[in-house]
């Protein structure tokens, strides 16, 4: 069931190209904006890490806002509720969809960041960076799915989505940005402090469980 919904979501995205291109374009544009706003050609260390994470976070808010809109407007929720399936299937499928969007976004945004702004070369730090990105993506996807479902059926959904998501994602930014900062330092990349990875892991676990526990209540009518 999860697989069926996931395939549907990915097919819709492939045909409409609604979220991922917008997210990627948004992130590249934001890097250009940062170049002019900071008046710097290259960045490194905690500044680089901060720029990357804030950009990725804002780009993911775009997807979070769109995640359930088609279901709400075109009766996807009704169809799903009529089907005799476990409601958590929708959560898991949407979570995986968002996760896939984020991964594709990063496939575009991270090389663009390396090309446009980052001073140390991307190649050496890439394996460790991918690990941090994936850990953070899981947290963003879990919270994003929950917030998307919460906000989509309110009148002010475009406003409430970011307002709810950004404070909830502060721990992700703290963990991911601090973990990436030593990687992006000029010269020899430093070691990643383990506690940031632990923070991200704990965040993923807690909000994964919370999302699983409360998601059913969002779908009751």
């Amino acid at each position, binding site marked *: 069931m999860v697989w069926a919904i996931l395939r549907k979501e990915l097919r819709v995205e492939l045909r409409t190209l609604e979220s991922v291109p917008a997210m990627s374009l948004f992130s590249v544009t934001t890097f250009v904006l940062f170049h002019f706003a900071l008046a710097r050609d290259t960045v490194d260390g905690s500044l680089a890490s901060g720029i990357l994470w804030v950009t990725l976070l804002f780009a993911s808010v775009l997807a979070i806002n769109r995640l359930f809109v088609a279901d709400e407007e075109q009766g996807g929720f009704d169809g799903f509720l009529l089907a005799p399936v476990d409601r958590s299937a929708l959560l898991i499928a949407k979570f995986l969809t968002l996760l896939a969007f984020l991964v594709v976004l990063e496939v575009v945004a991270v090389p663009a960041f390396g090309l446009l702004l980052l001073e140390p070369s991307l190649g050496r730090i890439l394996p460790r960076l991918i690990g941090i990105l994936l850990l953070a993506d899981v947290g963003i996807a879990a919270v994003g799915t929950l917030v998307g479902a*919460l906000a989509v*059926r309110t*009148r002010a959904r475009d406003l409430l989505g970011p307002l709810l998501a950004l404070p909830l994602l502060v721990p992700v930014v703290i963990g991911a940005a601090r973990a990436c900062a030593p990687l992006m330092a000029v010269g020899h990349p430093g070691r990643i402090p383990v506690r940031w990875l632990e*923070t991200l892991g704990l*965040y993923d676990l*807690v909000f994964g469980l919370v999302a699983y526990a*409360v998601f059913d209540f*969002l779908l009751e009518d």
Partner: protein
Amino acid sequence: MYGKGLRALSITTALIMTGAFALAFFWAPEDADQGFSQKIFYVHVPMAIVALCGFVAGAGMAVMHLWKRDSRWDMRSYVAIHLSIILGVGVLVTGSIWARVSWGHWWVWNEPTLVSFLIIFLLYCTYQPLRFSIADPERQARYASVFAIVAGAFVPLNFMAVRLAQQYTHPRVLGNISGNLPGRMEWAFLACLLGMTLLFVTLWKYEMTSKHASSQLRRLKRLLGEDGQAKGRRTAAPATREAATPV
């Protein structure tokens, strides 16, 4: 039902708060470093602790609401979170004043407790807009409870993350709560904490009583055929359908 014992509770709260502040100002010794300005500690810290406990209590009540399907729990959760947000404004203002006096800036980023509190406060600020933008009262209650639970789980996690982010050896009074306060200060602090908790409970009961009374009034008016004046008004407060069932 909520009005029972309210007078006695109010008087106790007033007495204990007065007593606690008297202890804090006249009995507890002045702080060697910060002098008189440290007295704001007896307002700021209990207020912060009570506000955070109020948020978590609101989450617990939201769990009860989703579990028992009783809209009264939603009302309780709403009132607890609502009061905690108001206390939260007080926490940020007193914290800011304290920071200004002792560190010379209105806002300091290296005080993890204050920063965590700001993030939590920003999150809870969306509670009312969320409620307000859902028209159907039943769904409003359900979604608000989901929000309250998620945010309640966020409170401890956020504190942990922010505290990790600033492993600082700042001379903090807050770090000393766990036993390093000199005896008199600690007793005065505990008295203030008790007073603040009682204040929260009293205000909570007052608001519950008021909501309950006005919903009963509406019900009586409806019975008398005077319906229609409250209808159609959007509100962030939970619909008081409890009036339909005798309590």
